[in-house]
């Protein structure tokens, strides 16, 4: 049921680049040539699902087979996005939807 209604609701897509998996001085504003990871977010009124995947700046390709990290927050129970449940849930549904 949940997936059916999730399917029907509008979503917004955002993204953010990173030069590395851990914070460094250019993490906030990496130049294109230094981008190695891209965080793609899909958010609805009920969740935010984010995948940080390997990114190749030379051909602008994102590799969703190479996931560096994930985030999943449920708005109703965690509106401030403090409790990442990505590793505690199966999220095949979200992966299929974001792709």
């Amino acid at each position: 049921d949940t997936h059916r209604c999730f399917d029907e609701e509008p979503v917004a897509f955002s993204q953010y680049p990173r030069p590395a998996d851990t914070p460094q001085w250019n993490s906030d504003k990496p130049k294109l040539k230094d981008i190695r990871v891209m965080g793609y977010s899909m958010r609805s009124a009920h969740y935010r699902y984010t995948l940080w995947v390997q990114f190749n700046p030379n051909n602008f390709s994102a590799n969703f087979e190479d996931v560096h990290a994930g985030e999943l927050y449920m708005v109703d129970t965690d509106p401030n996005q403090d409790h990442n449940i990505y590793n505690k849930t199966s999220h095949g549904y979200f992966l299929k939807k974001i792709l």
Partner: protein
Amino acid sequence: DGMNVLFIVVDDLRPVLGCYGDKLVKSPNIDQLAARSVVFSNAYAQQAVCAPSRVSFLTGRRPDTTRLYDFYSYWRVHAGNYSTMPQYFKENGYVTLSVGKVFHPGVSSNYTDDYPHSWSIPPFHPSTEKYENDKTCRGKDGKLYADLVCPVDVSEMPSGTLPDIQSTEEAIRLLNVMKTNNQKFFLAVGYHKPHIPLRYPQEFLKLYPLENITLAPDPWIPEKLPSVAYNPWTDIRQRDDVRALNVSFPYGPLPDDFQRQIRQSYYAAVSYLDVQVGLLLNALDNVGLSNSTIVVFTADHGWSLGEHGEWAKYSNFDVATRVPLMFYVPGMTTSSVSQGEKVFPYLDPFSHISDLVPQGQSKKVVELVSLFSTLAELAGLQVPPVCPETSFHVALCTEGASIVRYLNASENVEEEKDECD
């Protein structure tokens, strides 16, 4: 058909506004606009940093299509010769005008704010913009610094003014010219504050006594936040007052009382911005154009005020990507008022108590990339076609569907049914 467009875009403004339910902020003029608009409470930027977000919503393409994730490429050269929203209005008979920060200045807009493609006349930039990062903040020792928290005596500022004050003056001048010449216009006004440095007229501090300012509700770094997701707020660390705190990289934290000072100054800068918007909308009334001008109010992305131990934007958190978005459409979001009656009388945040509620509220999740198609539809222009899967070779198309249908759906402010309750 044939309505003018006043497009107000604010730098780094998260929905810290009365019309978005914030109880602390004084934003009567923006709240008054909201009371005559449909307000979207779930609007998101495509990337939480200036140039990529602005090029995205001004071309109606996502960052993976503009291929701009930083500040150092011009889409027409680097990705594709995409038409922009102002360009489209210009090609449809509008005089298109840019005041202040609409495109991000520099490489990403070809050092010209994409003039002449997008604009009918050279874009206006306030002469005092160049002092933005100079040492103009007076410290306790009386010396001048380049601080993050920077309440100022405007009379002491270079040229005795500030960029956003100059932008409002120029926008009002242009409204008068458009009225005199009876020309249809698309006027984009880009305000700099509350982008850092938080430099604003010091009197606005009186609205926010420090004892009323709290920390963020969740000022710690979440336990299960992947390290790649964290943004180390490098830009504010380079400001003199933050540097003097000698805070460890990358996780800090900033001292609590300084966190509260940042939040206090962000709010003060928002009220300063509200005054500028109030003067601009009051001028729209004065030239008698409030009944024939669509007003859009939005921001390029949000800003983290200490949530998750983060400051600034540069992340995928909602506080960094969620933006205010409202549309005032005469005869649609509000019935036209009789000739001469004021729609947007100026409201003084120091004396006005806001009791207004938005005319219409939509909880639909929407994106800034939809602005181009939405404004085209509202102005009665042909809506650009949806882009094909790969659109680098397509000059005019959009990756964001028009959201006009949500404007109609929420006009009687009914609570939208939530499919997933």
